[in-house]
């Protein structure tokens, strides 16, 4: 039978289309995260020494070079995971997969940042690394009474957030746990006093995230807790195995939210129901900022197994969930991180929410929610520009932070990832895929889940350092600049650890070491910092905003009471300025709403500013 010319044309077209697919795929899938079959779990320092970064390529091309220095800095912390009820043994690596957290805080007010690190094995010790100012740290957690906080029967640590809740000028610590959370009052930097009982906090709650913010602008920081596992669940003594999420993307059987209003005098009141923050999603990250321009901080919550929630603050009187109205609460994913960053230098925050992307199985993609031009208040609308800006694919993503790593005047983005790194030649993804799509009665019962048997689940993933080119595009340079480890990353902190005018990087890894990447930023680029001190009791100035005006740009940053997964960055705000900058002014809006302007602040130093 003769073949018509039309048929031949169709065949040629068909072959051409099929051949184009892998080419297009290669161009699109820049988010490749697999360490590859030949990749090895190498010490970060070893990875960096063989990378282009060691040859100086990273710095000359990208304006920064990262060198992992935890060993020389005296940091030898390795996170341990909890061992939960034996009924979960077959899937233990994935249920006991969180708890590596880190916060950067100057707890003793000596002007140098210290690090608090959470551990999660039963009986394991948390660490408080005091900055010795000579490039090294020393662990003072035990001496100051904040080490032994994972005792059996009390649950295990998930992270900490710091703020001066009692107005004495020192940063106090709230430790959130799967179990009994703890509040510690900072005794003038000389020790910590347990203040949990008199504060009126819950005796048991499986908290996935927490954040300090002054929701009613009464001058005292309030405390938000986001539940992960159901509140009354004792993960070490399960009475039922029906404790897993009822759905992979629509679960509402997690822990409850809690908002504790700070009454002063060390007491807190549960106002959750009164302010309308009730929700039982599986919360993994929450952060607050004045996203609508009302002067009151709104609350953005990233939920695992479901949509993100945007709680609009109605003048400190209550909250309304407007996720769908703003566009961020429609497509459910596996939210694990919330970070705010002014990516366009236009004085507005975009919101970065991390999710899961696994080649060939699940491509959720991370979200970069950018506010639409001309929208604010109740009309605020977001659009997801993660794909357009090149920050969408990051593997099984966890913590991410914005910060100007090369001081070029734009906010870059660091992402850590990787869920369970175990056997290199066996993946649990197939097993995960069959159970995840099943009916809720099957998926919600742990005993139905296939055993992991040493398989990895999105393990050994390459991390991301996305440099903002200032023109609407991010370039991924992690391997070139030296972020080369393949651990299961959880928390990211960007902080100037040694007061050098460069943002260093601290990474907390699940079942892995705490890594400190020292940043050699391009000295040709200038910088400026602001260390804000608010009026008591919120001396931490949580919620204060700084808008820096220079060279026709305006960059917004704020003092956060907890941002990104299991992390809190420093209170001092760091701005890169690029070359030969002339800074016009810094406009500070304090949490009270009062504005303060600093005209022509001098670059190259941190300006200590007290609320006037």
């Amino acid at each position, binding site marked *: 039978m003769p073949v018509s010319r039309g048929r031949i044309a*169709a065949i040629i077209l*068909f072959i051409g289309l099929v051949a184009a*697919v892998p080419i297009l795929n290669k161009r699109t899938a820049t*988010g490749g995260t697999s360490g590859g079959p030949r990749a090895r779990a190498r010490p970060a320092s070893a990875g960096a020494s063989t990378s282009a970064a060691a040859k100086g390529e990273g710095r000359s091309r990208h304006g920064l070079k990262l060198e992992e220095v935890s060993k020389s800095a005296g940091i030898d912390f390795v996170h341990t995971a909890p061992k939960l009820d034996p009924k979960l043994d077959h899937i233990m690596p994935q249920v006991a997969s969180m708890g590596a957290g880190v916060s950067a805080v100057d707890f003793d007010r000596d002007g140098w940042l210290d690090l608090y690190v959470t551990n999660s094995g039963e009986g394991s010790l948390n660490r408080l690394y005091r900055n010795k100012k000579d490039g090294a740290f020393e662990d003072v957690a035990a001496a100051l009474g904040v080490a032994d906080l994972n005792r059996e029967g009390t649950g295990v640590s998930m992270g900490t957030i710091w703020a001066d809740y009692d107005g004495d000028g020192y940063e106090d610590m709230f430790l959130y746990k799967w179990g009994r959370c703890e509040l510690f009052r900072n005794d003038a930097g000389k020790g910590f006093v347990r203040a949990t009982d008199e504060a009126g906090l819950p005796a048991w709650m499986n908290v996935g995230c927490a954040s300090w913010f002054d929701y009613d602008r009464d001058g005292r920081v309030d405390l938000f807790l986001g539940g992960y596992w159901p509140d009354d669940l004792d993960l070490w003594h399960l009475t039922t195995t029906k404790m897993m999420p009822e759905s992979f993307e629509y679960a509402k059987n997690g822990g409850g939210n809690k908002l504790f209003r700070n009454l002063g005098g060390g007491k807190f009141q549960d106002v959750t129901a009164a302010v309308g923050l009730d929700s039982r999603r599986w919360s993994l990250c929450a952060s607050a900022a004045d996203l609508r321009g009302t002067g009151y901080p709104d609350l953005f919550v990233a939920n695992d197994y479901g949509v993100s929630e945007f709680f609009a603050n109605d003048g400190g009187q209550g909250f309304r969930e407007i996720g769908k109205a703003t566009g961020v609460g429609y497509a459910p994913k596996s939210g694990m991180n919330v970070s705010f960053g002014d990516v366009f230098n236009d004085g507005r925050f975009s919101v970065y929410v991390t999710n899961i992307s696994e*080649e060939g199985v699940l491509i959720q993609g991370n979200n970069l929610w950018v506010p639409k031009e001309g929208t604010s208040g109740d009309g605020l609308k977001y659009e997801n520009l993660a794909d357009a800006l090149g920050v969408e694919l990051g593997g099984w993503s966890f913590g991410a932070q914005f910060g100007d790593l090369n001081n070029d005047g734009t906010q870059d983005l660091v992402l850590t990832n990787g869920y369970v790194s175990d056997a290199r030649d066996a993946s649990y993804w197939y097993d995960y895929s*069959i159970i995840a799509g099943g009916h809720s009665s099957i*998926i919600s019962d742990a005993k139905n889940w296939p055993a992991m048997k040493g398989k990895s689940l999105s393990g050994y993933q390459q991390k991301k350092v996305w440099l903002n080119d200032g023109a609407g595009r991010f370039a991924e340079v992690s391997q070139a600049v030296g972020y080369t480890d393949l651990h299961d990353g959880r928390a990211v902190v960007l902080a100037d650890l040694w007061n050098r005018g460069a943002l260093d990087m601290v990474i907390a890894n699940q079942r892995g070491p705490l890594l400190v990447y020292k940043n050699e930023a391009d000295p040709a680029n200038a910088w400026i910092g602001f260390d804000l001190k608010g009026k008591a009791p919120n001396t931490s100035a949580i919620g204060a905003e700084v808008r820096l005006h220079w060279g026709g740009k305006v960059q917004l940053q704020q003092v956060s009471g907890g941002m990104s997964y299991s992390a809190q960055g420093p209170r001092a705000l760091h701005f890169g300025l690029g070359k030969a900058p002339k800074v016009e002014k810094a406009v500070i809006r304090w949490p009270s709403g009062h504005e303060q302007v600093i005209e022509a602040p001098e670059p190259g130093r941190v300006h200590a500013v007290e609320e006037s």
Partner: protein
Amino acid sequence: MSTAVLTEPAPPSPTPPPASPSRLRRYLTFDNRYLAPFLITCILLAGQIGYGFLESYTRTLLAIAGAVALELLLGRTIVGKWPHPASAYITGISVGILLRSPAFWPYVMCAWISICSKYAIRWRGRHIWNPSNLGVSTMLFLAPGTVATLSVQWGNTLWPMLVVWTIGSLIIWRLRRFHICATYAASFVALSFVRSVVTGEPWLAQVAPITGPMYQLFIFFMITDPPTTVRSKKGQILVAFLIALVEMILRLNRVVHAPYYALFLVGPAANIVDIWWRGRGEPAGAKPAAAPAVGAA
């Protein structure tokens, strides 16, 4: 999904239709060609309004527009007449539902590959691959870094399944193909016992996929596609079982997209055998009586 339920020759009617139906009856009679597009649109809207299960409206519209445009182009240039766009509309909407990708191009490419396959891969006047199954399988295999498929985005509860069952039953009832769905479902459940025994994993884990809404789309709308299934009822039952069997083998080899690949492998093989079997004794080049027109599906 089925891309040709509307063009399959109607089964013989026990009573011949009236020669000239009344005007009222004409208004009240739903044209078969529009039934499947209408119902699949209902499924899309129910899924999107209830769960927001689409990657985005834009991407789905892109797939639909891409499919219809290429169908019109190829139909006009190769067959010489404008094809009815309903079939391409279903292909586009199927791609828009089943494909998951943060990028835009996979939706267009998948729609184009699906449509183009109907004109490029033919034997004795029939195309042998379910177009959207071929398109989706190609994308999953060749673009794993960019593309996944609908899995958990329609929740884990009962009501989406009821929606698919209701709408699916309407179509399957008209096409008299429920035996295909029943055979596949029964085979899947039975073979999940086998997988459970072989792997040592809980049976409920092995049977879990078929308890989710996504699988109902596969059962009702993809394996029943008339132009790309064999003609005899016994053959259809056998093929449905074989799809489940091959799927089991793929699943034992931990292939995530096993159902798509199983249909991709079994469907055309069965069609080739069916066409050959039916074509025995016919003169070379003779056109099988039941073959749909080019571009119809």
